[in-house]
């Protein structure tokens, strides 16, 4: 079992290294990732959202819907914990203080 998983892990690593060959260099300011969508977030954040922190403006405004999803993830995890740990019966009061 350990051997099989080691082989799987090594194959995954090899594929990742193969993919890394063609990547733009680390920290390249002209890589496509920093040229296509993000310039608008940087230059227009003050004008469009009046927030100097771009991360905040993207998180809460441009992609605010993702943040709603994130909140829902936490809520889901909380409800799942209640669903699971409640059925422990009397022990629950000690467990979840």
């Amino acid at each position: 079992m350990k051997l099989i998983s080691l082989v799987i892990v090594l194959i995954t690593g090899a594929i990742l290294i193969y993919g890394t060959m063609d990547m733009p260099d680390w920290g390249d300011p002209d890589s496509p990732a920093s040229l296509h969508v993000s310039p608008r977030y940087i230059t227009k954040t003050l004008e469009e959202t009046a927030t100097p922190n771009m991360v905040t403006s993207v998180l809460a405004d441009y992609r605010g819907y993702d943040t709603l999803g994130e909140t829902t993830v936490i809520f889901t995890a909380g409800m799942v914990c209640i669903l699971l740990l409640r059925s422990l019966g009397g022990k629950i009061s000690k467990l979840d203080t």
Partner: protein
Amino acid sequence: MFDFIVSKYNYWMYIVLMMIGFYAMIGKNNLVKKIIGMNIFQTAIILFFVSIACKKGGATLPIIKHAHGAEHAIKVSHYLNPLPHVLMLTAIVVMVATLGVAIAIIIKIYREYGTLEENEILRKLK
């Protein structure tokens, strides 16, 4: 060749971390070890995303200086790319949520079977 390796060392490092985490997830027998592996695995992916956002050559934090003062021309190359950071804030929260659910299940498993080794639990089920 040396340049090639050095210029991407963050990426190599994330691959190594990811392999460590992945191995712990599928190769280890103890359930807590699997969760630890899961944590390392997801952190490695976050490291990858944060590495995408980096810009060399004097780029600073994605917060505009003197925002409410005089008008400055905002140059794209002066600030880091904010989008991967935003995505990773979400991913960290998702990571912790998964951790919470997994831990809830582990506590219940231990109450029911009295062990955390996967093969022993499967033996007890049969």
